[in-house]
């Protein structure tokens, strides 16, 4: 049942031109960034050759690229997630799901999986670019894999936050703006130069980006995985509660 809803959601995305436009634009921008990054490496390469233990191509090309991909996704994720529940409410199609023999958690999880799967497809397509470097050089596969895992977790949390925000309102644009606001806040939250160490470390822990950067360094730590998993679970539970609440209050 979960998978039925997830696959419908996933395929629905491809029915709108928006998803295709986003895919095209994203590919173009990432390709441009990738080429400039490779260019930088070419310039640096002769100097790096003389240094002992210098950063390799993975550190100079792949890590910054994946970091930027994460940032770009923050910009486009709201446009994808905004219509998840808002559209259903506006088209009065939510009652189809509500009167079908499926539970609220099936509906929310299904929607989340559909969107997350779409993001992963996009990510895999973008990963083809750094992977193409294998043709001319050797990459640090471990670092690349850790970076991809980090991004996959990051994108899934974008999806969860977007699904929740979409359950709050009937207006897709409102959902998009508030999703973007929350994502941006979580992205920059560790920028606050708080003098108190406890506050700073709390904000540092909450930051979406902070946890990604350790993945990009090739660090696979359970703290970071737990952060993303907790974030996803939190917002999905909130979305389920929200929809249940709506049945009570109308």
């Amino acid at each position, binding site marked *: *049942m979960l998978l039925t809803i997830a696959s419908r959601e996933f395929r629905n995305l491809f029915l709108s031109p928006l998803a295709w436009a986003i895919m095209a634009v994203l590919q173009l921008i990432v390709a441009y960034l990738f080429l400039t990054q490779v260019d930088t490496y070419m310039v640096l390469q002769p100097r790096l050759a003389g240094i002992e233990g210098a950063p390799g191509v993975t550190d100079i090309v792949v890590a910054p690229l994946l970091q930027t991909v994460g940032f770009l996704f923050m910009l486009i994720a709201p446009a994808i997630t905004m219509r998840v529940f808002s559209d259903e409410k506006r088209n009065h199609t939510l009652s*189809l799901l509500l009167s079908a023999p499926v539970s609220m958690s099936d509906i929310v999880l299904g929607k989340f999986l559909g969107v997350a799967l779409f993001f992963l497809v996009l990510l895999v397509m973008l990963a083809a670019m750094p992977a193409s470097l294998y043709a001319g050089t050797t990459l640090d596969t471990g670092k690349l894999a850790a970076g991809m895992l980090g991004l996959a977790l990051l994108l899934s949390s974008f999806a969860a936050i977007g699904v929740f925000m979409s359950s709050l309102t009937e207006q897709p644009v409102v959902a998009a703006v508030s999703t973007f606001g929350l994502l941006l806040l979580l992205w920059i939250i560790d920028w606050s130069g708080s003098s108190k160490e406890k506050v700073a470390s709390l904000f540092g822990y909450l930051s979406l980006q902070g946890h990604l950067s350790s993945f990009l360094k090739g660090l696979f730590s359970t703290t970071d995985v737990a952060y993303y998993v907790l974030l996803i679970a939190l917002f999905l539970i909130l979305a389920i509660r929200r929809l249940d609440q709506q049945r009570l209050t109308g």
Partner: protein
Amino acid sequence: MDTKILIRVEKLYRYYGHHLAVEAISFELAQGEVLGFLGPNGAGKSTTMQMISGNLAPSAGRISINGIDLLDKPRQAKAEIGYLPEQPPVYPDLTVNEYLAYCARLHRVIKGKRDQAMARAMQRCGLEGTGRRLIGNLSKGFQQRVGIAQAVLHNPAVVILDEPTVGLDPNQIRDIRTLIRELGENHGIILSTHILPEVQATCSRVQIIHRGRLVFSESMETLRQRLTGSALVLETAGPPDIDMLRQVEGVSAADALDGNRTRLHFDADNPADRVAACVSAHGWGLVELALDRQTLEQVFVDLTCSEQTSGTEAAA
């Protein structure tokens, strides 16, 4: 046919904030019944139907579908329901086939029976040949039919239709009425509508809901007898003598109406022929002699207008 109780609703309440939309509604629906839900706009019809279909949670009360409590076991209970809301819940981006296949999967129709169920629902709702068209490109009437097809697709025990004939042309309305009567033979159906003749044509029971309360609930048979009435209206060319009419055998009372019209009440058998004989014997000139039929519309207006003048608060 054994009459199985398909829906049992007990003391249903629903508040929107402080506004009481549905108050203490209780009723039952047996297999083979078509229940017509009538009421002015905002009376609570849709709210009640949304609660029975599980789209809204009641503030208080119990609902059981085919013996399964909707609040305790929503999943099992909802499997027995087909629901068409006021707005057909269709996705404009899907084709009719895609949409119905999705609905079949949502309602757990077994894989091998899906095609058959879809073909049957499409044939019943007159959707043959539209399978590959986008729902968004269909006319309102066809979208409505897709909505009905969705509600009957999984062959549920109970079908709840909220204003199913809105936006349809007269031919389609007749088709849908036939479909409803056909479904009513094996299922239990709740139908809400504003069109009173529709109720008389399709329903076996009528309930009128007004300001959140159930104010009228009768089977169509009882209603028909009641509507036939126990009065005659007589119109004559010249003024009749009321006292003489009162003495006609079988007439219990007579009131003069405007013009040369008189209403004659009777208790047992219809005294029309004796009245006619009396009129012609006195040479008043018979113009018309007819049974005073009360229509469903009058019942509706009587029940829902009297209170409306006293209360001004608009229902939500």
